[in-house]
């Protein structure tokens, strides 16, 4: 982690530092930072902090980073906020870039993976699990007529077509 970075010189208005609790609170506007970006940035910190997300009111999301370190100083907590803010901006912008460049990223990713994986071998195919339900079919589109509607009763006696044990042509 970039622990060598100098701490922020002043606390921004949307940040509250509770040094005694080893926690820092940060309020962000979800119209600036999409929720996906907040999740992405928050997740990066879960090895160092307990992270809580809370909506105190409409138009605000409050993030609490409660550090796992024994006695974090105020400077360390401020640095945590700074790093979180940078990660949040990074996630928000990455989300936008990914949308804009989606086609290119998908094409390169597909080619890279397909080129490296190659076609499946016979062993790969032999291990393929065909027993799973392939897909949900609530309307029964993949079912045969007989499965869906039942078999017609044969005229004039037992035994349907193909099940006759004898008879004459």
């Amino acid at each position, binding site marked *: 982690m*970039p622990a060598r970075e100098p701490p922020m010189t002043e606390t921004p208005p949307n940040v509250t530092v509770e040094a005694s609790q080893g926690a820092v609170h940060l309020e962000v506007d979800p119209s600036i930072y999409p929720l996906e970006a907040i999740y992405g940035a928050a997740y990066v910190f879960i090895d160092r902090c307990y992270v809580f997300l809370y909506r105190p009111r409409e138009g605000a999301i409050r993030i609490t980073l409660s550090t796992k370190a024994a006695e974090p100083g105020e400077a360390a907590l401020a640095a945590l906020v700074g790093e979180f803010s940078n990660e949040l901006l990074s996630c928000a*912008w990455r989300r936008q870039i990914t949308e804009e460049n989606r086609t290119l990223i998908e094409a390169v990713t597909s080619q890279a993976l397909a080129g490296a*994986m190659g076609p499946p*071998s016979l062993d790969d195919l032999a291990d393929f699990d065909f027993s799973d339900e392939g897909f949900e079919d609530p309307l029964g589109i993949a079912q045969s007529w007989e499965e869906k509607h039942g078999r017609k009763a044969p005229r004039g006696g037992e035994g349907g077509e193909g099940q006759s044990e004898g008879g004459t042509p």
Partner: protein
Amino acid sequence: MSVDLRALKLDPSAPAFFRWRQVGDNVVITNFEGNFLILSEDEFRAFAEGRVEPASDLHRRLDEGNFLRATYDVDRAAERYARRKSFLNAGVNLGILVVTLRCNETCIYCHASRANMDAVHTDMTPEIAEKGVDLLLQTTSEFLTIEFQGGEPLVNFPVVKRVIEYAKAQNEKIGKRLEFTMVSNLALMDEEKLAYLMANKVQICTSIDGPEKLHNAQRKLPTMDAHQQAVRWIHRINQEYEAAGLDPTLYHVEALLTTTRDTLPLWKEVVDTYVRLGCRALFLRPIDPFGFAERTRQRVEYPRAEYLAYYRRSVDYMIELNRQGVEILERFAAIFLTKILRGEDPNFLDVRSPAGTGIGQMAINYDGTIFTCDEGRMLHEMGDDTFFLGHVDTHRYRQLVGHETVRAAVVASNLDGQPDCVNCAYSPYCGTIPATNHKTSGSIFGRMRESDVCAVHKGIQDYLFQKLATADAETRQILERWTTQRPREHFVQGPGEGPGES
């Protein structure tokens, strides 16, 4: 002077898509397919404002580089882009086998987290080695390098031999172009082992941290003569190459440098050491944040601005030596210049987009566990299994390459989705390493503006473009010569080679 964008009257209808970066008094522009031009500030203003005279030399240069919207050649761009990304179809071409973690040397920055010589439980067994070879030979790549690493691979030499013989035998049916490389400190080399390695065409690489005093202070043998041992064997191995009739300018022991804080003031001594050893290449690698380097960072780390000053001094000196007829190149410069000047990618797995993590390389640990890359394996030794993919007993090649971690790493290291990189003029030539990003910023994407790797890559390319902007004909020729890759065909083995006899 620097270009003030606010003062420009930009005309978006004239230039095709481009990125730019101020380098000294000039402006470097690059486009989607990686063409570049170095413009004066006045030329850049005229270009950005759509004021370039159609009959001018600047117009001709811009047109040739495909920088003009009116004449933009999509087919040419697609062809250049495909050529630059030809590695996408290549598959895994580097398989790292950690045949043991045991090592006879103790390095202050050991990235591999070496084990003591009595830790025999960290030796790879022949069974695991064979399964590892079977797995690697399933690669879609026609070409495969099997690299022996450690620890010190010579500690577990019987398994090295088993791998070579088994791989060659299996390859009789598969028919790949196969190469073996060993990364060794050479202290445990002897004539018998050398004869075997020569007979089986194993390329030998070692580590040299510069002059003797520095090397011995950073890489410690109980006898305190790590440098002397390495140097002795470098000369001995080079003798063998010559005796085999191989061109010594191409076939010689390659050495790797790890730059620590103590290396920085010794830039000239480092270059001189490499030249004296007969090396034709020097890789000025900065220290990585893995293994023991994490614990010793207070002693070995340094600001990257200091590294870049050291880099510039070293390469300036190497260029000067080249002018005097000494052939020595810097490896980072060669990688970037090949991309910049030749429009090709030398497929260096850590400097490409997407990175080679899992799709270009795979690392198999002594116990059969498999990782996306060597850095992923180093993180495992530090207790972080983010880049763990599977085990030779249970996983097949396609499962590993298609693993969700590999997919994530491929997406994360694609610079077209990376903040900062999308606007960076050096994007067509650059790359990022998911494992390093994960270690330094907690996410495989990283944050480029805070990344030491980004700072180094940008700084080196700034230096190279400055050189290209101001180079006289001789310097330009030297830099272009550094992009020439002469394949070492002697080390490449196809089917029918048979076991080498020592």
